[in-house]
């Protein structure tokens, strides 16, 4: 039986400005919007995207979506694979829907507000992806990269991603849209004072050793960043489902329709991110990398697979553990009345889905490969 994987396919039929098989695009094209009639206003803030015939249209997809499809098709036609990851590696959002609903029903809103606010802030930090220093791709990759996603990273792809997440000039992005979803669903809750502190408190991890010290630092960093962000984006699918369910629940949401719809808009905007990142990583995987001193050649597959697995393991084990511990502490401290807090913690724990990463630290993990 085939292992289920994260596909998050792009829609097949696209109103596109791109020609069939077109592989070269200008930055202006990759940042161009589809036409829409009405703008998206979220929480009184003008955001990106808009509505055409009542349907939400994601921003900057006029050329970007068909471009990614064309690059993927080319890669598959050349006999290479697109990387993906099995669904069983994706940690469910903690707290799950039932746990989160319990908290809201008990009037314990802060953990959910904190969680949604942190998501919005982290989304905003996605803007920094435009600042990733790129290596000399043409010099450090043996084969030609014309007509690939790789060659377009600094030609609009990273910039489009950055704008989607943090907004650009007068238009808000996912940061503002998550804030709006939170405010719609939870009726403009007061944001806990410790949100920024919590974001900063779990950050002091030691800097791991280089996996491939022969490669330039920038090359290894680029692969790490793309793997890291791709894993985050794939894991986010579960966050979207959780948030749509919770903020769309009339029993606990102040505006279920609008709250869930806002999350759905963000979810739709994120699809190109997963796709361009997996395309660029797969293109690297299909090529050969040159060491920094130019004396060695290393198969891209070896490098990408190793770094991707490393990122995946860290994201799927360490972070969920930290988040889980943090939230359980918050729940235990939710009421001054100790008996009441203990009872809530007991109910909360009883609803836990009990997910654990399916491999021990010393067991290998797999990457899924999608072929033509």
């Amino acid at each position, binding site marked *: 039986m085939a292992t289920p994987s994260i596909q998050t396919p792009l829609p097949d039929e696209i109103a596109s400005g791109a020609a069939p098989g077109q592989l070269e695009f200008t930055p202006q094209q990759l940042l161009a919007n589809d036409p829409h009639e009405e703008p998206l206003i979220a929480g009184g803030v003008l955001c990106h995207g808009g509505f055409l015939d009542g349907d939400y249209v994601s921003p900057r997809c006029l050329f970007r979506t068909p471009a990614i499809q064309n690059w993927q098709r080319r890669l598959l036609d050349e006999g290479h694979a697109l990387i993906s990851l099995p669904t069983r590696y994706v940690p469910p959002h903690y707290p799950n829907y039932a746990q989160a609903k319990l908290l809201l029903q008990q009037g314990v809103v802060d953990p959910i507000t904190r969680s949604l606010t942190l998501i919005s802030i982290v989304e905003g930090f996605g803007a920094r992806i435009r600042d990733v220093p790129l290596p000399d791709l043409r010099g450090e990759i043996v084969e030609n990269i014309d007509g690939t996603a790789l060659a377009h990273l600094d030609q609009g792809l990273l910039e489009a991603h950055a704008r989607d997440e943090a907004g*650009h*000039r007068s238009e*808000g992005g996912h940061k503002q849209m998550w804030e709006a979803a939170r405010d719609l669903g939870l009726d403009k809750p007061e944001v806990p*004072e410790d949100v*920024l502190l919590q974001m*900063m408190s779990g950050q002091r991890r030691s800097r791991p050793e280089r996996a491939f010290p022969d490669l330039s630092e920038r090359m290894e960093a680029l692969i790490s960043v793309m793997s890291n962000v791709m894993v985050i984006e794939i894991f986010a699918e579960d966050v979207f489902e959780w948030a749509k369910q919770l903020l769309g629940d009339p029993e606990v949401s102040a505006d279920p329709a609008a709250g869930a719809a806002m999350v759905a808009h963000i979810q739709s905007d994120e699809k190109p991110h997963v796709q361009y990142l997996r395309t660029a990583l797969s293109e690297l995987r299909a090529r050969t990398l040159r060491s920094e001193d130019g004396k060695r050649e290393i198969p891209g597959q070896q490098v990408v697979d190793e770094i991707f697995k490393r990122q995946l393991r860290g*994201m799927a084990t360490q972070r969920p553990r930290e988040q889980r511990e943090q939230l359980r502490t918050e729940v235990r401290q939710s009421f001054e009345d100790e008996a009441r807090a203990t009872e809530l913690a007991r109910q909360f724990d009883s609803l836990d889905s009990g997910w654990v990463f399916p491999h021990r630290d010393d067991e290998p993990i797999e990457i899924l490969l999608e072929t033509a």
Partner: protein
Amino acid sequence: MSALRWISSPAVRFWRSARIGYTAACVWLRYKGPRWWDRALGRDPDARDLTRVHERNAEQIFETAVHLKGLLIKMCQVIGTRSDFFPPPYVKTLSKAQDQVPPRDFEQIRRVVEEDFGKPLDAVFSEFETTPVAAASLAQVHAAKLLDGQTVAVKVQYPDIDRIVRTDLTAMRRICRIYERFDPQPIELLPLLDEMQKHLELELDFRREVENADRIRGLFANDESVLIPAVHHELSTQRVIVMEFVSGIKVTDTDALQTAGIDARRVVNGLMSVYNRMILGFGFFQADPHPGNIFVQPGPRFVIMDFGLAKQLPKGFGMGLFELMFSMMTFNEAAMIRAFEELGFATKTGAEDTYVELARRMIGASDDGTFSGEFTEEMTDELFEAIRENPIVKVPTDFVLVARAFSLLSGIAHTLGHRANVLDSMGPGGANSRTESAFSS
């Protein structure tokens, strides 16, 4: 006649007031003289470049302060931090008062310690260095050994400093009133004096400084990267603090850091992380991160000193500042306006464009014309220049202190060959850049 009685005698009080008055008159005349001359010749007095006048005045004020010490030194230090209020030559010259204070005679220091402890120095300390390790406007620090052999740092307030402060404040207040009567468009100096007096009253009570240090030590109780020297509470009074003597490398001593094998990039990242947590997280911070107050041990571990200037930020300030930085990064004007207002800025006319102009000028002064999260000295200078020129009525003091702190940290980072990016060092993953955050997962 004892030094204390001498310093507080009417003749000395008169002499101090006269010297302050003379300096103030010189400063005033250097501004007014050329204006009268220009008017007499039919020239536009506002067209004159006053840089040289600012420089000469600042030098004279600094010389007077070094001579009279006490409040004048403190005033120079305050002016040196208020780029929003004073022209750059004043800020540059008077900020020298941070680390160019001549020490007091040891006998004066001995007397304060013995008075406060009610016993001779050698009843408490087995050794007491007569040469101070540091001297500041209100106090100086000596190394000493307790009877049990423990090495300590003893911070001792200058004798009679409270009376000197009162004398100088009275003289300066009088001069300000005279100035306001004579000048048709006076600079509003009295509110600044009020603010200074408020802070000085707090700073002159060392028990408050001890409280600040204890509080910040508590905030970092579980963090081994921060060391706030422990205070011997039983030996600390309103004028004396006895604390653990902690050694370390001055944060800007690049050679010593390198010799000790301490990575400068990790120093910058770590220091930014510490200040981010204080300012954006805890809302309470040591507001004077100049290089003389920060030492580094292997780790890196940061030894932070001097909590006389510590600030409780209002609720929501951290998030407001974060939103301001974020909106400046994306240049989202509507979000910028909201953030400025949340931080407590207000304009005379209520015109929101003023905020956008402030941000535009600040961003324009960055290295590449964009804001990526670093408050460089050039950017904060430009912001405060814009504030002086624009019809801003209310600039929150908290913002000024925070901007100055980040600007000082930026200066430290640049000395170490790196950048002090606030957003990068607070970002998810926490390292200095998206690049590093990927490595750190």
